[in-house]
């Protein structure tokens, strides 16, 4: 039940006692939300669940809560739910973003500040894959950018199905964080290399591809993408329709490296020549 001030001589109802018992035993039903929500004073001491396939926010403002108040928030939806500091200050040692089945508690230290204590995700989410760009993103035009990638997963996996370029022999390339600076990327096709230079501006995801067939499948893994202290590594392989004999494949298998330490928050997929005719990109967060 929501926090309230009891008065001397007040008679509690059975429903109030049951609710108090549930709260004391960390049980009771959560207040279900299906869209972005701004906390109100009555949320103090309660649990809130969010369920939405797209990204949502829980906004925290000042002058609503007192020191010691708590609000538990659980995300049931596929879309990431992010705790957002409105007029209040929200600090955390982890992330303010809750992936599906993750939960955390806002612990208010004053009327204007709270600490967000993030708990472990439910076992169902552990080791699982969550589609981040809901429904996938159709490849159109000459470039498709997937941005504001949440930093809440261990790894990323990009899957592109049925890619077909408008221009024969075009390829798909990928850029990390929109970074086109020279000598930031390296792409290797051998198992080991003791002295490889960073000599690229991008990651080539495919070889030459036919513009008349679209049976392509492209998979790229990016590991520990959210850390902010190391270079980034990934690998991938792709089978696209060969431009000379479309029933044959053009095959690529590679390791890729990016010599920047910032977290990966956006991926740009682009055609090396002309537009995309078809294709859908699915970006998964791997827990």
């Amino acid at each position, binding site marked *: 039940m929501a926090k309230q001030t009891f008065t001397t001589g007040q008679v509690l109802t059975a429903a109030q006692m049951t609710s108090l018992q549930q709260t004391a035993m960390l049980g009771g039903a959560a207040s279900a939300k299906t869209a972005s929500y701004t906390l109100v004073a009555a949320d103090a001491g309660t649990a809130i669940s969010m369920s939405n396939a797209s990204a949502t926010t829980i906004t925290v403002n000042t002058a609503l809560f007192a020191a010691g108040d708590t609000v538990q928030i659980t995300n049931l939806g596929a879309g990431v739910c992010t705790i957002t500091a409105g007029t209040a200050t929200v600090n955390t040692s982890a992330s303010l973003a809750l992936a599906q089945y993750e939960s955390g508690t806002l612990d208010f230290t004053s009327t204007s500040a709270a600490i967000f204590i993030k708990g472990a995700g439910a076992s169902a989410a552990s080791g699982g894959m969550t589609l981040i760009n809901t429904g996938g993103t159709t490849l159109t035009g000459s470039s498709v950018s997937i941005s504001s990638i*949440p930093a809440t997963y261990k790894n990323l996996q990009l899957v592109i199905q049925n890619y077909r370029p408008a221009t024969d022999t075009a390829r798909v390339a990928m850029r990390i964080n929109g970074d086109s600076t020279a000598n930031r990327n390296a792409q290797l096709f051998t198992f080991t290399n003791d002295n490889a230079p960073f000599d690229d501006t991008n990651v080539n995801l495919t070889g030459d591809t036919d513009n008349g067939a679209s049976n392509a499948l492209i998979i790229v893994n990016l590991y520990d993408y959210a850390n902010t202290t190391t270079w980034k590594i990934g690998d991938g392989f792709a089978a696209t329709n060969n431009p000379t004999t479309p029933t044959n494949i053009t095959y690529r298998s590679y390791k890729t490296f990016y010599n920047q330490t910032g977290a990966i928050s956006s991926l740009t997929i682009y055609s090396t020549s002309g537009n995309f005719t078809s294709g859908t990109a699915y970006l998964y967060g791997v827990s």
Partner: protein
Amino acid sequence: MSKPQIKEYNCETGEEIIRDASAAEIAQMALDKAEADAKKAEADAKVTAKNALLSKLGITAEEAVLLLS
């Protein structure tokens, strides 16, 4: 002539927009195409040189692999 189109998907908001490429992005596309063309030309030149050498030696690619194994 119409400008190249750029699609942007924001994972946080779920918003998807399609817009014209900016002048800087069009310039980058030209650089990317030139770079891709240069890499392709380099790879093609290697294949041509390799085939010419195999022809000069009078052996097939499979026989060359066998020779070096």
